[in-house]
């Protein structure tokens, strides 16, 4: 079922190579996993295998961007965002037109365990004032985001899944950068979610509907810049807010929403996400363990609604 957003990315980027001669792609010995290999196969002269040197990859891509290229640099999100100080200087502060593609985010990567799981990457990237952060929820959205980023000018971070994700959009979907995407209307509470947990959140909303709880579900594909107006409006209209993400609840989507609402629309709120380091296990087993599958998300929302 569904497709991993890293695969959607790889396929779409390889297609864009034909129409965007300025696109160059870098990888740090993970092209088979990030799917940058699809671009490499078609445009080998514009693909740079940088080896296991993420610092140097980020800097070299920034240098190319400053010479007019449109680099996409790819690795596991934790490995590339972990070299944050180079991103901060050579990409962010330099206003270099580099898209950082971080795959294998969240505990959903499974058996490899915590060392390969990015659980803090959004939190780090959110601190850079000009860093666009996009996390697509399914294949259509991932493709649209890649097309958008090919023409975007500025530092950007694209956060992608290792695991397959079910479709939450149909062919009529249009991606609007910086705009919240309402997937389901509801009046009792609003659930803001992002990335690989969006589909599970919709399933949770279905379960809770059976119990008479009417949830609004809003997909936040663009975490920065956040659609403040839509977030505040939904909070005001429903009076209860839940966030769901496969990331630390500190500094990620939950953090972003909490900061926004604390200033503009103080609202009762619960953040669902990671509060510990990750561990090894099957992806589905881990989602069950950490309460990020549909049942776990429903349980979290149910507990919150009982007291809020």
């Amino acid at each position, binding site marked *: 079922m569904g497709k991993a957003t890293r695969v959607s990315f790889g396929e779409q980027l390889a297609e864009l190579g034909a129409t965007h001669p300025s696109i*160059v792609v870098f990888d740090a010995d993970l092209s088979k996993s990030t799917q940058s290999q699809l671009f490499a196969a078609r445009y080998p*002269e*514009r693909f*740079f295998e*940088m*080896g296991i*040197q993420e*610092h*140097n*990859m*980020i*800097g*070299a*891509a*920034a*240098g*190319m*961007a*400053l*010479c*007019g*290229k449109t680099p996409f640099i790819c690795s596991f999100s934790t490995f590339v965002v972990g070299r944050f*100080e*180079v991103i*901060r*200087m*050579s990409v962010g*502060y*330099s*206003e270099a037109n580099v898209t950082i593609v971080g795959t294998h985010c969240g505990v959903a990567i499974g058996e490899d365990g915590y060392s390969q799981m990015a659980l803090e990457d959004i939190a780090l990237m959110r601190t850079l004032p000009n860093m666009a952060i996009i996390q697509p929820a399914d294949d259509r959205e991932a493709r649209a985001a890649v097309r958008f980023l090919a023409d975007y000018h500025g530092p950007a971070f694209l956060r992608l899944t290792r695991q397959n994700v079910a479709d939450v959009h149909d062919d009529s979907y249009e991606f609007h950068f910086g705009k919240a995407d309402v997937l389901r209307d509801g009046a009792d509470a609003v659930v803001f979610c992002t990335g690989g947990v969006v589909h599970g959140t919709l399933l949770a909303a279905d379960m809770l509907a059976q119990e008479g709880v009417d949830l609004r579900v809003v997909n936040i594909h663009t975490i920065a810049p956040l659609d403040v107006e839509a977030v505040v409006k939904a909070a005001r209209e429903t009076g209860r807010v839940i966030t769901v993400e496969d990331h630390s609840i500190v500094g990620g989507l939950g953090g972003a929403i909490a900061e926004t609402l604390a200033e503009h629309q103080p609202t009762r709120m619960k953040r669902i996400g990671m509060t510990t380091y990750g561990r090894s296990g099957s992806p589905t087993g881990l989602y069950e363990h950490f309460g990020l599958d549909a049942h776990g998300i429903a349980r979290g929302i149910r507990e919150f609604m009982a007291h809020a």
Partner: protein
Amino acid sequence: MDLSTSAMQRAANEMRVDIIQMLHAAGSGHPGGSLSLIDILTVAVLKHIGRNADNVDAPDRHRLVLSKGHGVPALYAVLARAGVIPHEELLSLRTLGSRLQGHPHNATFPAVEASTGSLGQGLSIAQGMAMAAKLDALDYNVYCVLGDGEMQEGQVWEALLSAAMYKVDNLIVILDYNKGQIDGPTNEIINLEPLADKLRAFNWEVQEIDGHDIAAIDEALTEARKREGKPHFIIAHTVKGKGVSFMEHPTEWHGKAPGDAEARAAIDELHTLLA
């Protein structure tokens, strides 16, 4: 512009005065590593890059990345000499609203080419710029000035491996080897030696020169224009604080601006060189 050896020597010493005046006016900054660097930048930027107000935006311009960003007063002085910025603007260094940030910022002032100051990052950027030239079939060189202290950073050695692997032979590194860093002499903190042997083992074309000998710098940069499949590394032995006797010390004048009397004494001494 007169680019004879003697004229460049004189220009470098005049810019030493600029550096002292800038740092004195700013009340902070890095004199030692700016004075050690100025002879290298004079020859590289004015003669080999040929920077001027007309080519500062040209897509095929030669580029220089000052990886040791704390030496930027020297770069600003050279850019003023090249006519890219007005000379009087130099005294705005480090003040609110100035293009002349305390460390280079390309988004504020594109002529510096890259943002540096967090040590160890410039060589990677320079490598990417040099590879972009190859991709675009443009003929420019990318010069990168490193400090010896920052050669302790792992990222520098990543780039040294990578640029040789990619045969980036339009990349020319000049090491301002002034032997000092904040906490002590470089060879007592983390020794780089034997450096030339290491770099040759990394498949770089290596030269070793006196970084205050204008003719030697000129000759080495000419040699480094050869495109033979290897990136170029010029180890330029320098003296921190060069030109001002009381600043010639490996650590004492790393990050301390001269006060009124010190600035006056330094400029008086430099004027004897210019007399």
